[in-house]
């Protein structure tokens, strides 16, 4: 079963990895510890064959939102959803269960500061009923 993990954050300004830039100041040692935590998790899910794809997203400041109305595209600066939290990055996983996907989500440092959303990806297969 495939899942999209959406990593949300509330940045002052964008910095990757996304969890390094939260509301509190981190000492270099803390930054390093958190970086290790994050990289360890990514290595683990890549090694287990669960990680399909992942990427950090650029600052919302340079995001464009496109709306086509009456055939005319209108382009505005900034994200579609106007909120304090923004989508900072994503992971596409293939896991045995939603419990496993949830467990991985909980281990992103970001989950402690903002939130990680677990969205099942629609499957092109199905049973007749």
């Amino acid at each position, binding site marked *: 079963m495939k899942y999209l993990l959406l990593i949300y954050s509330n940045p002052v300004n964008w910095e990757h990895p996304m969890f390094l830039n939260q509301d509190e100041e981190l000492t270099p040692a803390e930054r390093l510890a958190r970086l290790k935590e994050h990289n360890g998790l990514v290595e683990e899910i890549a090694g287990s*064959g669960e990680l399909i794809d992942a990427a950090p997203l650029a600052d919302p400041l340079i995001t464009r939102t496109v709306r086509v109305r009456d055939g005319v595209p209108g382009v505005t600066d900034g994200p579609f959803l106007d909120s304090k939290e923004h989508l900072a990055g994503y992971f596409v996983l293939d896991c045995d269960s939603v419990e496993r996907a949830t467990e991985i989500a909980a281990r992103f440092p970001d989950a402690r500061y903002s939130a990680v959303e677990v969205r099942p990806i629609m499957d092109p297969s*199905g049973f007749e009923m």
Partner: protein
Amino acid sequence: MSITGPAEDLLRRLAPRVLGTLIRRYGDFDTCEDAVQEALLAAAVQWPDQGIPDHPATWLITVATRRLTDAHRGEVARRRRETLAAALTPVDELVSPAPGRDGGTGVDDTLTLLFLCCHPALSPTAQTALTLRAVGGLTTAQIARAFLIPERTMGQRISRAKQRVKAAGGRFQPPSERDVADRLPVVQQVLYLIFNEGYTATSGANLQRVDLTAEAIRLTRTLHRMRPDDGESAGLLALQLLTEARHAARTGPDGMLVPLGEQDRGRWNRELIAEGIALIERTLARAPVGPYQVQAAIAAVHTEAATPDDTDWPQILGLYQLLQDLWPNPIVTLNHAIALAMVHGPQAGLDLLIPLDSDERTAGHHRLHAVRAHLLELAGEHTAAHTAYLAAARRTTSLPEQRYLSTRAARLPLPG
């Protein structure tokens, strides 16, 4: 793999036997399995051009052994050179099995490998991937395409699975009778998962996908041949044959899922049905009954009906009651409720669903809403059925199921 037809069948059949021979010589499952994979890839490239070699098994063993030696350079390579010379001698039992024998040790090797790949230390997805590669002779790329994930991810999953098997002390040795009894259900479950993965795949969505139902049936046939007295292996094979028989009828021209009751029965595969029915009848008569056999028997009763109205629902209901005793689980209860409704009316079925609302395995599951919707529709309660269909449609993660459920909701006549 560009290779198709008989050459590919031959490769798939030889793969576990070649692997068994290599492991017996060099011992390490992990590296031998990699070497066989490379030999299979080399065959897929060379055989279509140069023709199938006279001794295909020996050819594969030679190439795989060369890959193994390439992998061990320096001192190790020097030490292995003598072994390589020995390895190049044709292997009699693989080249020319005695008349009437199915490759001798090859068959035992396949069973041993099947048990190794379905090691209980592995998750179902890992068991499935490893089985398809080491026993099924599929390439990583083919398996990855079948599961719609990148080849890199699948490669990682397979190599991790092999490490796990090793760490858990898994060895290439024929399973004891006790191991067989303990682990046969795991092997059957893996073959069942492979079958379902192929069966539920939307036809035409990806023409490059290997046919996992055919692969599952082939492997289950092998299992059944190796353990002819095991009722559940026979039952699983019969269930697969009888389910696969409906394959062509299960989707409409627009890719829409067609429920059993609305399928064009003229499109059911009579050959598979005949084979499946003969197998399940033979098995039920002599083996202790188990869940796969009962499910196969249910499928057989469905396929014996010329039209949906001819379905022998009382017999199906009896079989579901038996299945519920053998293998109590909420998904069985859902199907049981449908059979109950067909015999004793929709309200009886709806009553059976009530406990499932408080069962955490089914509460909020789309299948519970879908079955309830269906029974409410039968009862003529269209408004409630509409709500339940939409609740199911919102909860499924399958695109074709979602489409089917929304369509069922939309075609209900609603008051006002």
